[in-house]
């Protein structure tokens, strides 16, 4: 299920994945890599921001609950940076209205709640990138 249509010489779409939970990080990385994306995976908010600033991806998947800078903190920084339009998907445990509200208010493009379906996550990532193009 590759998201790359058209030009076979195009370099793979870069996606940044940030989650302090190694299992989630690895499985999302795996899923997206299998789908043809180039994934950079980091384990915390600071790392996510630094990775983003150093090499801005085409899309970011951020876990909300991370120690130090949370996904929402990182999102806030992204929206205030020069690459503010990068689509961002937030991952969070259980739907709590306030988290979701805050996420969208700060500028998330989509929100996936744990427990989540990896397949659905991929669909959403594909959709977000298609819309961004």
């Amino acid at each position, binding site marked *: 299920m590759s998201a790359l249509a058209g030009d076979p010489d195009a370099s793979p779409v870069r996606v940044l994945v940030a989650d302090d939970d190694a299992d989630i990080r690895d499985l999302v990385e795996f899923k997206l890599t299998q789908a043809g994306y180039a994934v950079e995976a980091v384990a915390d*908010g600071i790392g996510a921001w630094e990775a983003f600033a150093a090499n801005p991806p085409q899309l970011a998947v951020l876990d*909300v609950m991370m120690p130090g800078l*949370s996904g*929402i*903190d990182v999102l*806030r920084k992204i929206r205030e940076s020069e690459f503010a339009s990068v689509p961002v998907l937030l991952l969070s445990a*259980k739907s*709590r*209205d306030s988290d979701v509200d805050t996420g969208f208010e700060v500028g998330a493009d989509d929100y996936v709640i744990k427990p989540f379906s990896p397949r659905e996550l991929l669909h959403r990532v594909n959709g977000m990138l298609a819309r961004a193009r």
Partner: protein
Amino acid sequence: MSWEGFVSGLRSAVVWVMDAASVPVLVYFVLINTSLLVLVVLAYLEFRAQERRRATALSWQGAGLAPGVSLLVPAYNEEAGIVTAVKSFLTLRYPRHEVVVIDDGSTDQTFARLEEAFDLVPLPRELPQEIPVRARVLGVFVPRDGRTRLLVVRKENSGKTEALNLGVNAANEPLVAMLDGDSILEPDGLLHVTRPFADDPTRMVATGGAIRPVNGSRVVSGRIVRVDMPQTWLPRIQLVEYLRAFLLGRTGWSRLGGLILISGAFGLFRRDVVVEVGGLEPGTIGEDFELVMRIHKRLRDEGRDYRIEFVPEPVSWTEVPVTAKVLRNQRRRWHRGLWETLWAYRSMLFRPRYGRIGWLALPYYWLFELAAPLLELFGIVIVPLALLLGVVNVSFAVLFLVLAYGYAVLVTLSAMVVDEWAFHKHDRWRAISQTIVASVLENIGYRQATAWWRLEGWWASLRGRRHVWGVMTRTGFDEDPA
């Protein structure tokens, strides 16, 4: 009088004192450290329980029963860090909370910075006067977007107590927490410290969360991104003190049901109960201690079923003094507050109506917190003097040293083990060795100095001198470990 005569007279005096006091003093030292050890054991049991809770943890999201929280932030000349602090408070993970900043007549740019950062507009709101506040309210402001849950209240300068009481009046949520402008909260801190309220909504009236020194840790945008040890020895020793006294003592006490002290940097209270007991008492220095005592007294007098609990997870971080001068002021202030509150509530001692607070917690605080510096310094003066004069032999002096100080190190190390077990916040071996060294160093000079300062505070109170608030020079936080 000849020199020999003087010495011989002194000698007899010391002999007399020693005869009278030597055994009691020794007994006192053994008791005080044993009681601390008892608390350590209790805290150990409590931490086993914590471990169990962690091993079986379920992700708790607060659902609908998470009560709303108003974070009260009194601010006086805090231009350096106030905006960062408020931003970090606003972005804590919690379903429903607001931030109430009370500008206590700052003479610097505190308000201007807030106004600019949050686009504040004046609101013609009249604040309730549930707790009487003398100072005049100069204005109430909200962000122009109408949605950011921030309220800024400006008032004439009249001190932190009135600022907090005004904050309680202005608060919109059922729970209030009293913060400092330099507090840093864990992003999930509110979830932890409100949990007891959500689990027992009809009885819980107050909860306390642990605080830790932030010195040395890396802070970005008001969040701790890496926990590290302070760079110099004075704050390191205080870290050790915090581990021992705040964490263990309070967790231990909480287990015994005798919790009376909620630390100054973080306590969460039911707003209606705070109003009911009349808010914070102006003119006292141990505000939070005094408030908790008043709540205990009032609710027990009324025979109400209530709970106060301590949440051992680190909820809040604060900057501790790095210079002796600021530390001295802090300790004087704390001890003065302790004395004044204990004295004010002396009627609760040993009365059956007040349960464990009356017969266990309060006597403990009187004997082992209030009187401790007195007896400690007495020991330091008398024993060397006695040794010098040949009144006691070396063995006694050594025994005294070992019991008084070795025991203290022992207790502190126990605290470290328990902490290591429960939290392992400091992830390096270097941190552990520094903590061990600090726990030894504490007994060489630091402990004696703080004992002296505490006595100074006590004495100042007895002499009725007005307290002068020391100013913590704030450098603001980001990227700048002390």
